[in-house]
């Protein structure tokens, strides 16, 4: 039977709600008022939204006017990519986008859509074997950047955990006069963040990935940036984003950001210890296992809670199923089409072939993860690998 007591290794998909966030969210959900209304109830609501905005801005090192609330990370990414592209095209006729090959689909798919439907030209920024972009190539692309609408490189990869040198990338873009967007969904609470020092044009964050409620996110957007809206309507957020603001979710989001930023360093250190313990355990338990991404043992180069491994000869989706039955929640880390794990475009971008790309699992941890959970995972992996490799072997055609 499926083991009911779970060991959860999918915190990068979503994580448990922080108590303070839940309290803030519940408190606000009991109240009445639209933040855009002009009466007292509306003003009280607006007060909550603006205090949340100011709190988030202060914690991330930016100005409140830079915070554009959205309904989540995907919307924020869409706004950044399409909005910056449309703005740059409208005002200065720009037609190119520079983007890394390992972006999340929330960035990748808007870029591909602009390429397919709106004649955008894409400059793909390749990555090396651990998933870090080639800065020389970026510099070359930025040189002669007159018609570059924007450059987008994610802060840290959601699958393999590799952290990009965003400070240097932002600086290269700034020097070239090209708007720079980075998807920071995975880094909040895990790496130090100082947005003023970073100097990016736009940065995406999501609430539920850090223990806030679902349905909230933010694009931290330079107030000087030229961005055309994706959602048209009441113009609630600086005329760049329309839609009634979700005050309870925003209040919960702000509480979650406070929690995430507050204990970042201690949390990262504890997570790195767990991560290294899991990696050591996997390497000794499974001969031939490949740890993907940056193998630095600190938290600056790789997300502290991320372990991504390939198990040669096994299909990731079968491993997932077997571990699921053993009480382990984990992920293949890549997108699904109708539940079919696609071979990860990230692994393919690292130079792996399709079979290798399909043989991978992501284990993502949070402050809630315990050494006992890691031990349970390590105890379950060898049998799962054994069975999945036998199932893989029968897939080899003999006729």
């Amino acid at each position, binding site marked *: *039977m*499926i083991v009911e007591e779970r060991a959860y290794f999918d915190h990068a998909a979503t994580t448990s709600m922080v108590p303070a966030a839940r309290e803030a969210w519940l408190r606000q959900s009991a109240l009445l008022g639209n933040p855009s209304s002009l009466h007292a109830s509306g003003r009280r609501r607006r007060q909550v939204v603006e205090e949340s905005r100011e709190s988030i801005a202060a914690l991330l090192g930016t100005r409140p006017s830079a915070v554009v609330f959205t309904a989540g990370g995907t919307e924020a990414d869409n706004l950044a990519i399409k909005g910056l592209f449309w703005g740059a095209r409208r005002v200065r006729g720009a037609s190119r986008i520079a983007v890394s090959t390992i972006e999340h689909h929330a960035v990748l798919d808007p870029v591909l859509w602009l390429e397919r439907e709106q004649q955008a030209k894409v400059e793909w920024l390749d990555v090396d074997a651990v998933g870090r972009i080639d800065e020389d190539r970026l510099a070359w692309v930025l040189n002669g950047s007159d018609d570059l609408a924007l450059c987008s490189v994610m802060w840290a990869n959601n699958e393999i955990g590799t952290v990009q040198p965003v400070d240097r990338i932002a600086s290269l873009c700034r020097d070239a006069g090209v708007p720079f967007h980075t998807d920071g969904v995975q880094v909040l609470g895990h790496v130090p963040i100082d947005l003023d020092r970073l100097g990016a044009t736009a940065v995406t964050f999501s609430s539920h990935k850090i223990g806030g409620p679902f349905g909230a996110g933010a694009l931290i957007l330079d107030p000087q940036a030229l961005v055309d809206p994706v959602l048209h309507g009441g113009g609630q957020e600086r005329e760049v984003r329309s839609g009634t603001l979700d005050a309870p979710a925003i209040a919960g989001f702000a509480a979650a950001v406070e929690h995430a930023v507050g204990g970042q360093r201690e949390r990262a250190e504890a997570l790195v210890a767990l991560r290294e313990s899991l990696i050591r355990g996997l390497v000794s338990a499974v001969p031939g296992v490949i740890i993907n991404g940056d193998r630095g043992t600190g938290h600056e180069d790789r997300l502290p809670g991320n372990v991504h491994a390939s198990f040669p000869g096994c299909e990731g*989706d*079968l491993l*997932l*199923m*077997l571990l*699921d*039955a053993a009480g382990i929640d984990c992920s293949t880390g890549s997108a*699904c*089409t*109708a*539940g*079919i*794990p696609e071979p990860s475009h990230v692994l393919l971008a690292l130079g792996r072939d399709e079979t290798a790309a399909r043989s991978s699992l992501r284990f993502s941890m949070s402050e809630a993860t315990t050494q006992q959970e890691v031990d349970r995972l390590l105890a379950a992996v060898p049998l799962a690998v054994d*069975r*999945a490799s*036998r*199932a893989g*072997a*029968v*897939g080899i*055609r003999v006729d």
Partner: protein
Amino acid sequence: MKVIAAMSGGVDSSVVAARLVDAGHEVIGVHLALAKAPSVSGRTRGCCTLDDARDARRVADVLGIPFYVWDLSERFRDDVVADFVEEYRRGRTPNPCVRCNERIKFAAVLDRALALDFDAVATGHYAQVISGTQGPELHRGIDPDKDQSYVLGVLTRDQLERTVLPLGADRKEDIRREADARGLLVARKPDSHDICFIPDGDTAAFVREHVGTAPGDIVDAETGEVLGTHEGAHAFTIGQRRGLGLTVPTPSGAPRYVVDVNINTSTVRVGRPELLDVDSIEGVHLTWTGEPLSQRPCALHVQVRAHSAPVVASARVEADRLLVDLEQPIRGLAAGQTIVLYDGSRVVGSATVDSARRMVPA
């Protein structure tokens, strides 16, 4: 027992999963993704659309069982679709559902299930596995309108050992009623009839697209007169009446049928339906669900299509070929078709038609 329930998202396999759960088995639902790019057009025909995967997942959630999608699209493409195209290229008329059962559902899926430490695979086919003195036997389902033992005729005894068919003793209308009573939202979903990888049902267009065109003549089988032309002989099937595009009527006004397809000369011969009658069949690619036949002629029934009437016959095996003499001729049998042998309701085995002819003159 640990069972993989193959869940298509249709009413039958949904009830199968529900019954297995009720019976106390450890059940995992698996949807087989057979097409690489599932149709997003919202079709509910066929068996591999996104909607169907979603329906299957929803049923699994309602039943409280784990559910996964297994991507078998490459195996399906290589073993079923490519075989289908190749058979048409050779002027034959294959049955892809039979191939899929033989090579995917009860082979790739079953092998994988066993390797993963499961005991069996269950499907919603209307046929029965009954334990006999020699081992498990495959029998017709009791609902004559739905009986699917024909498409399972290629299974071997080893496969039957690990096959669970919970619906063989049921009627379709009862299964719909049961799905409804169980609150499964798929209860009223229409049945799928088409070839799943040809959701629009236009097999001729699919064949043209994959085999190409090779224009040729349509000639009268008896006079040799050229009656018209065609874009490719592959797209024609023995017994076909529609879509010939002939403008010259027969003297009697009676319809003409395709009676012969010659790929080498790209000639399609048409004529009276009587020309389609055959009473002697040679089959290859023999499979045995029970004891294999020998050289000694054996009286049994032969079924040549999923829902055609069984015909009394005498069959024997010589040099790996099945030789069948029919008591009465049947009309229209193409090379590539699957024939299934029955002893009463029990499936004996199957073969693929290599050739068929009329031995006893009319």
